[in-house]
């Protein structure tokens, strides 16, 4: 005899060493939301209505609760036991092998062991077998209860929404895998009579209840228009984006299960689950316009976790790269300038032309091409640039496109300088000694962890002279980093000034500090907020951010408002903002010391962030 486990709730009960029966089959049945098992149990079992406590012991844990158990005559064991059918409610199933089933009744324990091999039929087959067996059981309340559960409809692969008495229309435009096992669902739903009581997503043994209050609503006037002749009171916002965590099991069918207020249960198959990448992130963030509290809700429950999972999957492996040196690059450079390149490779040509007349050969320039399809064009152009401008540089070509933060981090990995200067490719020197000033300022005080420059547009007005934070009520009161004095001529401020943050368009740090804080956080996607995040990491360690106005460069940031306000780009900025709030603002709101600028156009402020 041995003791049952401590956490069965039946401590002290004595379990027999020998088996008290056997399990022939075991299946998790999503339609019944529980485990169904069949076998036999010895004659010591007292077939009473009082529900036994049941423990399913699996290789990786157990499931327990009150079971529904029916017995029935079984000729093959008639001298030693009776047939047994058991149902144990459980929200989700599991995959590892069953060890034993323990039953506790009136102070007695029973151990049922699985037959070798244990049969684990599919849900439909298991329920059909159970139904046949239950038909031979004595007419008890337990039998009635079990038959009711067994008679629940099961998903057979067929859509059955059209059998509902009051129609509900649910269509998916796409289901995207958010690795490892989340699903992002995009579609629309019309429930004109409020028929739905519970809507679930199921995948094999996994199930999740969809809370429509947490969906991201999407305007679908086309859908509303299509149904408006049949039904009144429809709204444009019948489209949705929903995120379902911990649901997807490869190889298992994924489907909706709708339980109506009239007790009907219907199903709808979710067709193919798509893999994800940057294109999916863009797609996900298109055609959304979240504001106010919807923003927080939408990013907390849907967009945030979905994009985070997709981005993490996208960057799951360290990116490979090829490295080339053009000309005699310095072995021990004073500063490493890291410039990620994407799209406009001619910016490299222009920068190198301008650097050739302004930059000391003590510094190294590292271009990181984050645009693999342009590898050949860039290496040819690089060679041409060296011959024309005679300014040495290094070129790192990434094997696939990873985005701003990871590209810079590769540059940081290969850099050899005492300082590092992250520079955008659309930044061009205005004063020849811009970098000398920045390095001098960084070296002047151990407090100076991050140094920025005065960046101007081509009309000599300010693009950046330090970042300031501002909370925007329209955008869930989140903090955004803005550029004070942008668009105006530089003021009469001092040459070197401590500021709240520095733009990544031109940001210098001691190399040791940049590496100590791990470079840019790669959880931000494409290119917002990584810079101020980096500044925060330095500030957290006690360093200051300073702007040196003696260092002047042109920053030709994206000009077209139309381009900036593309909805996916704006929403991606909001995703990055959400991440920034979670990392730096929400835990211990440090916004009290921030300069607030007068209320202006909030949307413009966010698009400024995009730029």
């Amino acid at each position, binding site marked *: 005899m041995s003791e049952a486990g401590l956490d069965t709730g039946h401590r002290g009960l004595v379990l027999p060493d020998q088996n008290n029966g056997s399990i022939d089959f075991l299946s998790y049945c999503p339609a019944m939301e529980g485990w169904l098992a069949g076998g036999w149990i010895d004659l010591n079992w007292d077939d009473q209505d009082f529900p036994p406590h049941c423990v399913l012991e699996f290789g990786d844990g157990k499931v327990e609760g009150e079971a529904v158990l029916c017995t029935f005559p079984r000729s093959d064991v008639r001298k030693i036991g009776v047939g047994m059918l058991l149902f144990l409610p459980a929200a989700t199933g599991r995959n590892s092998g069953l060890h034993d089933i323990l039953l506790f009744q009136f102070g007695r324990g029973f151990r049922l062991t699985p037959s070798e091999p244990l049969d684990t039929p599919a849900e439909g087959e298991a329920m059909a077998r159970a139904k046949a067996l239950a038909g031979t059981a004595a007419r008890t309340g337990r039998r009635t209860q079990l038959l009711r559960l067994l008679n629940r409809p099961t998903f057979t692969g067929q859509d059955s929404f059209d059998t509902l008495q009051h129609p509900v229309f649910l269509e998916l435009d796409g289901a995207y895998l958010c690795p490892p096992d989340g699903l992002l669902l995009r579609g629309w739903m019309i429930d004109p009579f409020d028929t739905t009581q519970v809507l679930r997503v199921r995948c094999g043994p996994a199930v999740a209840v969809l809370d429509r209050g947490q969906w991201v609503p999407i305007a679908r006037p086309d859908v509303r228009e299509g149904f408006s002749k049949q039904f009144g009171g429809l709204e444009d916002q019948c489209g949705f984006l929903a995120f379902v965590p911990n649901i997807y099991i490869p190889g298992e069918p994924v489907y909706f299960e709708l339980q109506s207020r009239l007790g009907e249960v219907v199903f709808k198959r979710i067709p193919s689950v798509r893999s994800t990448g940057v294109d999916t992130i863009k797609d996900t963030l298109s055609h959304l316009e979240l504001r106010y509290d919807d923003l927080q809700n939408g990013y907390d429950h849907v967009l945030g976790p979905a994009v985070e999972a997709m981005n993490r999957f996208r960057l799951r492996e360290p990116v490979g790269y090829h490295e080339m040196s053009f000309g005699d690059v310095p072995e021990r450079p004073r500063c490493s300038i890291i410039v990620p390149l994407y799209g406009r490779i001619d910016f490299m040509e222009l920068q190198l*032309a301008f650097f050739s007349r302004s930059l000391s050969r003590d510094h190294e320039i590292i271009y990181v091409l984050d645009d693999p399809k342009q590898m050949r064009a860039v290496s040819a152009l690089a*060679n041409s640039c060296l011959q*024309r401008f005679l300014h040495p540089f290094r070129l790192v070509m990434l094997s696939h496109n990873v985005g701003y933060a990871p590209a810079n981090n590769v540059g940081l990995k290969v850099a050899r300088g005492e300082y590092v200067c992250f520079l955008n490719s659309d930044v061009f020197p205005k004063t020849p000694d811009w970098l000398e000033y920045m390095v001098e300022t960084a070296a002047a005080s151990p407090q100076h962890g991050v140094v920025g420059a005065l960046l101007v547009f*081509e009309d000599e007005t300010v693009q950046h002279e330090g970042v300031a934070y501002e909370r925007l009520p329209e955008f869930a009161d989140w903090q955004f980093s803005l550029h004070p004095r942008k668009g105006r001529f530089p003021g009469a401020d001092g040459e070197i000034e401590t500021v709240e943050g520095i733009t990544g368009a031109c940001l210098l740090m001691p190399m040791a500090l940049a590496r100590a804080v791990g470079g840019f956080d790669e959880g931000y996607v494409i290119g917002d907020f990584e810079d101020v995040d980096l500044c925060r990491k330095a500030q957290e360690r006690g360093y200051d951010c300073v702007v040196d106005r003696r260092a002047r460069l042109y920053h030709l940031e994206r000009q077209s408002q139309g381009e900036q306000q593309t909805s996916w780009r704006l929403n991606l900025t909001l995703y990055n903002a959400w991440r920034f709030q979670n990392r730096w603002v929400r835990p211990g709101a440090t916004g009290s010391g921030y300069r607030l600028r007068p209320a202006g156009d909030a949307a413009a402020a966010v698009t400024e962030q995009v730029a």
Partner: protein
Amino acid sequence: MSEVLDGIGVAPRVDGTLPSVFIMTHSHPKLTRGGAEISANTLFRELKARGATAWLMGVASARSALRLGATLTQPYGPDDFVYHPNAEFDYFKFANPDPQFPRVLEELMAELRPDIVHSHHFVRFGVESFAAIKRGSPGTRIVLSLHEYLAICNHHGQMMKTRTLRLCEKESYAACAACFPQHGERDFFLRKRYIQMFFDDVDLFVSPSHFLADRFRSWGLPPEKLTVLENMPPERPELPAAEARTPAPPRPAAIATPKPRFSGERGALAQEGTPAGRRAAGGVAAAGRLLRFGFFGQMSPLKGILVLMDAAKRLDAMGVDNVVIEIYGDYSSQPPDFQKAVKEALEEASENVVFHGVYDNAQVNDLMRRMDAIVMPSTWWENSPVVIQEAFTNGRPVICSNIGGMAEKVTHGVNGLHFEVSRPASLAAVLAELAEDPGKLSALQATVTPPPDAGTVLDEHLTLYRRVMN
């Protein structure tokens, strides 16, 4: 001799008292005959005729013979180079991505060490060439002749709006981006900075007109580096005998001649290829003197050929019958839409228009002397048109649009007349006035002075070279 220049022979210096000049042009004169190539070639020839050391380098064309792997070849002689580009030229910012050329040019300069590099153009060589020249031979002075408004304007250097073809007075990032929506303002900002940065290496910019010089000055070229000097004139065919240079005096009787009618027949196309129009040949105006106005040159959209034909039609409608417009030029290489427009205009042309088609430049003097005046109705600014120089060489006044380089070279009432650009009515009025009073034409002819000859212009070049060397 360096590795890259292996096989390149260089002619010895000839006269140490004259500056040695390395002349560059964007297309080799042996291959094409544009204005810049002609000027470069004349300069080369005249310098050598004086005994100076001179070299010429032009860019190869598709029909140039390649030497595999060679960037420079010398098919025309030891002081004559052809550059074979190895990359597609960037016409937006005039960058030459050819990775071979900078080193080849630098080494050639280090070897030749010319006193002067006179570049007629920067396209195809690239503005970076100036830096390579200075690297190879820091003591060399660079003179750059400006052709058109190329560095300023991305629209073929014409300073005309792309969509409306209206005249552009001044470039700006916004205005240029409006003409070329595929480029943003910042692209034009960078374009200008890129070009100007490499222009820093140029010691002297030469403009053939004050108008063009002013445009470049307001664009940002330093005034002290800008000078105005006419391009070397093209080689002139021998001038006809002296008496032929003096036209017969116009006879006022022509004014009263009634308008001729040629029922059922069109004007210009019917006479295509004939030396003169029906009106001229038919003797309708025999009672009076027939005035001939000649158009010479490319019949491209901006040369104003449609303005001219419209003016001819107006003259016809006005009953002016002692005027013939004779067109010497070609439109076969123009865009299809424009060819169609010219063809239609010629079909519909009034009887006072004669279309002769393409002409041999060797005959230009003969042909011009058959005219009473030359018409230049260009609808763009022009710079220093060769046609004006040719007209003056032949003692013919020029009737031209009242803008840009034309208006500068032609003094209204002295050696020609101006009319309002792109206004056929204005041109018709000027021509009608001369038809009514041919004496005015005689007066203009009398005050036309021929342009300086090649020797004189070369002297001016040498003066400039010495100035910039000092």
